[in-house]
């Protein structure tokens, strides 16, 4: 059934009509938007692993759900890359049927508890909410999503989505991050025999090595992975497709379709003097040490650079994750250094707000031009060029321009460079015949995610270069639909 029909049919169910009529729209829109319960900023900036957002209580969630007008044309859904049936799950919450709400989420999302935490809802579903047109705050769709997913997990009554009869067609997924997991979930539902190959020793990709515990606990990720496992998805860690096994091996083993979701591997640096000094590292390195390797735990063998004055270069979510981690690991000063102004920062508003509450300093309109080391080659200072905003550039944001002669030197004993990533060449190199862009990304058909090799599909950062969890998941879904259609046609 087409999505539009599903929306109409489900909206027309008697319970939904009754619920809609139980309150006037005016009453619904008059309810103020719920505030997320959060850990105290002073406390949380000194503990490593406690999640900042505490979630909503059942009462809060049910009240927030009442704010949703259950629109005839739910524009919120058009803002969701994985097309979650948003009004349906919200109305289940209003009715108090939380498990049904969770079930609805799982129809189209393989990772609802993850999305409820890390999706930039304010730029997606919530940006399309009818409330905004009435000059009211959007319904807190993200908080509600998280509530439903958490409720289900904590209830112990975790539902397994319906799985079609096995068709015994073997499908390989390269990489176990959000794109790969989302694809695996959809393919498993359609009856495919799915194996996910992961290069690292842990399953989850960026959800494990990148996003910190205080924003997305690993335990939550593991439960979602366990859910996929129950759906029959197989996982193989420590296996690099293209290295440990080859494209030809996959064919020999009988795999009929391959989805490449190997992520954006290589960290970008700025190529300025002193960037290879000890104590200067990429955010990938810093976060991998702390998150994947648990380096701040005394029991871990992996070390991590612990500075007292840490500067993080960049203004994205990864920069916020890094700077907030540095604060939690004991930095007295943890500073964001960003060459544009706060307005142009790509990080989520919530992350910036949380960072500020935790005492993170912001040096916007500053750009590092050199790192200075001590006699042991350890970074001790950085030189910053002050900037001002000029005309808009290609991205539509105002271009930062150096103010001549305005250079400042500050003391730092650790620098984390978080200025983006480039696609990892390891996997694309292994597939002869792929079309690779000048940025190193895999070129695919935007609708089906099919690459130049007919049995190879790709999605997530290896196609986008650097995007969000939810866009990667959307790619996974589209690739699953595209591959399914192709394989069906062959039968």
């Amino acid at each position, binding site marked *: 059934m087409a999505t539009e029909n599903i929306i109409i049919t489900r909206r027309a169910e008697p319970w939904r009509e009754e619920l809609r009529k139980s309150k006037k729209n005016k009453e619904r829109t008059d309810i103020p938007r719920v505030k997320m319960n959060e850990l105290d900023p002073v406390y949380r900036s000194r503990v490593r692993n406690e999640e900042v957002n505490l979630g909503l209580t059942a009462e809060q969630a049910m009240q927030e759900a009442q704010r949703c007008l259950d629109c005839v044309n739910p524009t919120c859904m058009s803002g969701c890359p994985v097309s979650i049936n948003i009004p349906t799950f919200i109305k289940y919450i209003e009715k108090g049927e939380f498990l049904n709400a969770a079930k609805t989420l799982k129809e189209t999302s393989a990772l609802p508890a993850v999305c409820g935490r890390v999706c930039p809802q304010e730029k997606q579903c919530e940006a399309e909410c009818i409330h905004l047109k009435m000059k009211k705050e959007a319904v807190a769709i993200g908080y509600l999503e998280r509530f439903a997913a958490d409720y289900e997990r904590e209830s112990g009554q975790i539902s397994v989505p319906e799985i079609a009869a096995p068709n015994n067609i073997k499908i390989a997924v390269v990489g176990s991050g959000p794109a790969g997991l989302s694809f695996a979930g959809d393919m498993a539902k359609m009856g495919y025999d799915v194996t996910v190959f992961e*290069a*690292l*020793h842990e399953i989850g990709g960026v959800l494990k*090595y990148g996003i910190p515990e205080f924003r997305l606990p690993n335990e939550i990720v593991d439960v979602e992975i366990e859910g996929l496992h129950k759906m029959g998805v197989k996982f193989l*860690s*420590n*296996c*690099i497709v293209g*290295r*440990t*096994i*080859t494209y030809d091996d996959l064919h020999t083993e009988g795999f009929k379709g391959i989805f490449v979701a190997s992520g954006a*591997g*290589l*960290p970008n*640096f700025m*190529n300025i003097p002193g*960037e*290879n*000094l*000890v*104590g200067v*590292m*990429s955010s*990938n*390195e810093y976060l*991998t*040490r702390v998150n994947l*390797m*648990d380096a701040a*735990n005394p*029991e*871990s*063998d*992996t*070390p991590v*650079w612990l500075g007292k004055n840490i500067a993080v270069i960049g203004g994205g979510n990864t920069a916020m994750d890094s700077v907030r981690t540095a604060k939690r690991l004991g930095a007295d000063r943890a500073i964001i250094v960003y060459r544009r102004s706060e307005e142009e920062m790509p990080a989520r508003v919530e992350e910036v707000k949380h960072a500020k509450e935790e005492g993170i300093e912001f040096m916007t309109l500053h750009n590092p031009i050199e790192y200075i080391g001590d006699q*042991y*080659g350890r970074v001790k200072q950085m030189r910053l060029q002050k900037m001002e905003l000029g005309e808009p550039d290609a991205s539509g944001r105002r271009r930062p321009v150096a103010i001549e002669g305005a250079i400042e030197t500050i003391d730092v004993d650790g620098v984390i460079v978080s200025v983006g990533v480039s696609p*990892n*060449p*390891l996997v694309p190199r292994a597939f002869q015949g792929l079309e690779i862009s000048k940025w190193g990304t895999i070129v695919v058909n935007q609708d089906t995610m099919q690459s130049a090799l007919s049995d190879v599909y790709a999605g997530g950062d290896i196609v986008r270069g650097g995007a969000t969890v939810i866009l990667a998941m959307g790619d996974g879904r589209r690739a699953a639909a595209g591959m399914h259609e192709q394989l069906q046609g062959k039968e």
Partner: protein
Amino acid sequence: MNKIVSKEQFSANVVKLVVEAPLIARTRKAGHFVIVKVGAKGERIPLTIAGADVEKGTIDLVIQCVGKSSRKICALNEGDYITDLVGPLGQATHVEKVGTVVCAGGGVGVAPLMPIVEAFHKAGNRVIVVLAARTKDLIILEDQMQANSDEVVIMTDDGSYGTKGLVTDGVESVIKREKVDLCVTIGPAIMMKFVSILTKKYEIPTVASLNTIMVDGTGMCGACRITVGGKTKFVCVDGPEFDAHQVDYDEMIMRLGAYKEHEQK
């Protein structure tokens, strides 16, 4: 989990482990490395593959106990398991017939040199191996090197075995007596630096195989970055072998010391 099939003590500080890894044994080439992690809270460290047996499905790892993580691996015995092992990683050695190749190895660099010696010898080159160590007891793999090369020159700091002198003295003696077309060097960074200075003087193309700090080993973290010819390179995906004359060894040595205090704990 990869089972350790056998263990051999090469010297007081150096052990060889033969590890079950059938997929890696099949695809690895000379110059490749693996990332190894022991225990749930273990560190990921790179180790060059010293050899492999495709039939038995095993690879050889030679480890020198230098810090916490290598000690942990050295303490494993036959029948134990390596928690995580992934590879083969890095670019394989570029092997072709060039004429005479001098392979200079010091310390634990001798083990990763083994498959390279073997590969160049098989490709029809005249291969001369220079093995260097502080003292006689620390010379390893001499017999295997003999079997896969045309000549082995032994150098010890104290003169207890072979000729007294440094690895560079051994390499220079060969250069002075015959035409050398290529030099390959693996060992401590400081040793490779001096081999490189020497061969540059004689204008002999030289390859150094670098062993830097790594976390993921797949290009993701950038911990292994070094400067080669003025450009930043990642040892894990661009290397581990580079034009020895272009490597900034001083920077590499400095970066290798990043976690020195931690390693001794």
